[in-house]
Structure formats: structure tokens, C-alpha cells
């Protein structure tokens, strides 16, 4: 039972903080709310027996990515409510569009019946050992290929970052 309440609580947090990200005026606040959202999601991960992933999630997102965001915001000196406002109609249309999306998604997914639900629940899937095996056996190739991705992104970021020599 407690799990259920935890779920509700975490879900509530995630959604609320998510909304705060979108709605708060100060970019710094947005970043912080996003971090909170990530924490709530990490809580869900733990709840789902994916402890390792929860840890990685915190480290990568909250620890790395969000810091990067913060860093940029600071660098660009955007920590004020500088954002000009969209007019009401645009905001309304944005809300309507995403509301419609939500309705359609929820409407189509709410009665979704799963096919492959295993009766034999395995609580160990989220453990490092299991994940490692999957990653380095089944997903070895993607893993290797991901290095290309990161290398490319690195080169790209460097390329954009450095001053061109004329």
C-alpha cells in the first residue's frame, strides 16, 4: 500500500515540478525545478527496482546536464525575468495544442492492454550485473557506436566553441 502512496506522491511531485519548469518566469528557477523533477523521476526508478539507473540518472542529469544549463544561464546572464511574454492567444493556442495532445495520448493509452506481461517477475533486472550483461553482450555494438556519437558531439561542440582563426 505504501508503494502506491509513494507512487502517487512522486507522480504528483514530478508533474508539479514539471509544470513549474515550464511556467516559472526565472530561468534559474526552471533549472532548479527541472532538477527536482529529475529527482522525482529517480524516485520512480527506485520504485521500479532500477536502482542503478536511478543513480546514473541523478549523476548524469542532475549532476552534469543541469549544471551545464545553469552554467550557460549564468554565462549569458539570463538569471532575470527577461523573457518577453507571448501574447495571450499564442499561450492559449499552446495550451490547447498540448492539451489536445494529452487528451489524445491519454485517450488512446488509458485502456492499453499489455501483451508480454511476464508472470515471473524478476526483481534483478535493474541490478548492475544484469544491466552490464545486457549492455556488453546484446547491446555491445550500440555501446561501441555510441562512442562515435559522443566523439562527434565533442568535436562539434569544440568546433563551435573555439574562436575561428582568421
Amino acid at each position, binding site marked *: 500500500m505504501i508503494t502506491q502512496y509513494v507512487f502517487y506522491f512522486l507522480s504528483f511531485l514530478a508533474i508539479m515540478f514539471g509544470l513549474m519548469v515550464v511556467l516559472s518566469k526565472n530561468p534559474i528557477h526552471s533549472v532548479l525545478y527541472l532538477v527536482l523533477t529529475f529527482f522525482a523521476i529517480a524516485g520512480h526508478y527506485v520504485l521500479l527496482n532500477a536502482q542503478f539507473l536511478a543513480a546514473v540518472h541523478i549523476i548524469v542529469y542532475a549532476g552534469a546536464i543541469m549544471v551545464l544549463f545553469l552554467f550557460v544561464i549564468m554565462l549569458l546572464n539570463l538569471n532575470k525575468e527577461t523573457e518577453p511574454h507571448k501574447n495571450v492567444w499564442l499561450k492559449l493556442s499552446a495550451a490547447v495544442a498540448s492539451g489536445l495532445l494529452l487528451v489524445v495520448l491519454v485517450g488512446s493509452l488509458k485502456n492499453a492492454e499489455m501483451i508480454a506481461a511476464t508472470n515471473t517477475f524478476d526483481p534483478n533486472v535493474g541490478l548492475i550485473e544484469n544491466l552490464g550483461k545486457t549492455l556488453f553482450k546484446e547491446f555491445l555494438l550500440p555501446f561501441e557506436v555510441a562512442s562515435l556519437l559522443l*566523439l562527434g558531439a565533442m568535436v562539434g561542440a569544440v568546433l563551435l566553441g573555439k574562436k575561428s582563426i582568421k
Partner: protein
Amino acid sequence: MKALILLSSLGVIALLAEIFSFKKLVYPLVIIGLITTLIFNAFDWGTDITYFNMMRYDDFAVAFSTVLIGVSILWFVMADGFFKEESNMTDYFSLVIFSLAGAVIMVSYSNMAMLFLGIEILSIPMYVLAGSKKDDVLSNEAGFKYLIMGAFATGFLLFGIALIYGATASFDIVEIAQVVSTGAASTIFYVGLLLMLVGLSFKVSAVPFHFWAPDVYQGAPTPVTAYMATIVKTAAFAAFLRLFYTCFQGSAGTWTSIVVVMAGLTLLVGNITAVLQTSTKRMLAYSSIAHAGYMLLGLVALNGYSQSSILMYTLAYSVGSITSFGVLGYVAKARGGDSIDSFNGLAKTNPFLAFVMTVALLSLAGIPPTAGFFAKYYIFTAAFQAGHAWLVLVAILASLIGVYYYFKIIIAMYFKHNNNESAIELSFNHKLLFVITVLLTIALGLMPDFVIGLL
């Protein structure tokens, strides 16, 4: 696989060139490397090996990756001048080669993870390249728009993958197909499928997910635009086709009607909007959208013709685009702008360039005996066989509109006069390139059997 390894190594070597300061050699090295890759790749023909259950190097993959690598060689020759002026030449080289590696993954994946990674490996360097003219606001804007919208679309793609995973418990496209074939597909699966469709439609710039394309194509440096129009588009279509042909064929009922509508819209919107453009580059961007519409025709046909028709089309279209962007690059540089007026009187000053451009444009417009004609014809056949006669009629109408704007350039070159009487000087490499592309365009038009017989 060989291609992937060779390309990765080539990319790294290019990176190292800067460090070990053999920058002068890197261009020939890249060309030689790509040719080597092409040869090795071609030898994989008929082998059909699956690697780690992640990549299946079947004939489809070999054919498309050969096209990709071949076109990229042409592209490198075409983009020659572009790199020479850049200080970070080797970085660009490696980025392009990495993205090419991503493209190769996109044509040979057999797992959603590989598809996803392939798309990202292809796209991320492209975001960078599109915005690589750091001082140019337009280039910045292009890169940024591409990135934001690309990431947004990736979100939908991933949501779709996740839902499909939930419905089928697998990322493997063959296994997914099996689940589908047992008839056990659920609503979740269909939502996932449709969201993946959206994500991929974005990549191929199908209407209404095409808005990024004209802006990005226009803002990006011309060679990058050429790369996006050719390699990226080819890879995206191959990935699209591979997924929907192998994986989602069983549930065609869900998505064909959408793709039919999208194809029709893409054809019309792409061609119609191109009509009023004054910037050649932007016009070619819209034309690229329109061409996506034709290829969607091949996709939606989903029959024995689909694969070879899209192969033929991408090849024909890529060759035509490389040529036209190459000429455009020259003209824009010499006449100081890419408006259609800058082509005025080109036939007088540079008959060769004008002729090359004409052939390329005829091919893009689909006039015999060029490759573009046969490709179009073949796509029409495919769609007809699948019973999409109305779509073919729309495509015909669209082709006519297409002729309208392609011929604007031809008319400008042959009919209008320009005060600037000086001829544009061509480098030897480009002369060679243009001769090859023209010959290729005509050869493919006259002997398409070589390509369409493959798949």
C-alpha cells in the same frame, strides 16, 4: 560493418591529422579512404551477415550504403573549395565522416537502438555543420532551428520506440514484426508506430513536419545543404523504408492512409511553395521537400518495387542535387548571391556550367533521358501497382509545377542577359566532377537496370 569500421577509423584519422599536422594530406586521404570503403562495402554484396543482432548487412544495406558512400565521395569533391578556406578543415572532415557512419548505421540497423543511435550520429554533426558559420546569423539560426526541432522530433520518435517496446517487449525489428504478425499488436503498439512515423517523417521532411527544412537548408553553408539534401535524405529514407518495410508492413492499414495524405501534401506544398522563391538555395530546399514526397510514394506502395524505386530515386536525386548545388556554389560565389537572377546569362559566359546545370535540373524535373525521369517513372509504377492511382495523378500535377521552377533557372541561364560577362573559372576537380555527374545522370537514365535490378 566493414564500412562502419573503416569510416570510424577514417574519421578518427582525420581528427588526428590536425594533431600530427599532416593537414595537407588529409583531403586525398579522405578521398582514398572513402573509395576504399566503397570498394570494401561493395564486396559485401550478397553476404547478408547479421552483426550482434544489431546490424544486418543485407543487400538493402549494401546497396544504400554504397550509394551513400559514393555520393559522399562526389560531395567531397564538390565541397573541395569550401573546406580549403576553413581553418578547422579536419574537424569538418571528421564530422562529415562520422555522420556518414551514422548514415550507414541507419541503412543497416536491425534494432531500434541502432536506428536511434544512427539517427543521432547522423544528426548531431549536422546540427553543428549547419551552424558552423559562426559569424553568420543565418547559419546560427539554421543550426539552432535544426537542433531544437530535431530534438523535439527525436522525443516523439523515442516515445514511439518506448511504446512499441512496451507492446512487444523487444527492440529488434524482426521480433517486433513477428509479434505484429501474430496479430497481437495492441493500441499501445499503434500509438508507438504512429509516433515513430512522425519522428521519421520529420527526418525526411514530409509535410507537415517539413518546416525546418527550407530555413535550415537556406541558412546552412551551401555544401552542408547539399549534404543534407543528399546523404541525410537518403539515409533517412532508407531507415524509414527499412523500418516500415520489414517491421510495420503487417500493420500497413494503420499508417498507409496517413502516408498517402502526407505524400500528397508534401508533393503539393513542396512544389507550390518553391514556385515563388527567389533564392535558388531555398528553392532547392523546397524542391527537396517535394522529392521527399515522391519517395513517400515509393514507401507507401510497400511492394516489390518500393526498395529499388527509392534506391533509384535517392541516387538520381542525390546526383542531381550534388551537381546543382555545386554549380550554385560557383555562381553564388562569382555573382555574389544565390538569387535566380545570378544565373542570368550563364549559358553565354559558361556554356559548360550551364549545360551541366541544365542536365541536373532536367533530372530533378524528371525529363527523359535523365536518371530523374526513370526514378520518377519507377516510383509511379510502384505506386500504381499498389493502387494509388490518385496519388500518382497528384504527383504528376506536382511534377508539372516542379518543371515550372526548375525551368526558371534554365530560362535565366539561356534567355536572360547579364552585364557581368566574365566567365567563372572552374577547377579541374569540379570539371571532372561535373562530367562524371552528367554522365552518371544520363547513364542512369538510359541503363537504370543496373540499379533497379539490385533490390
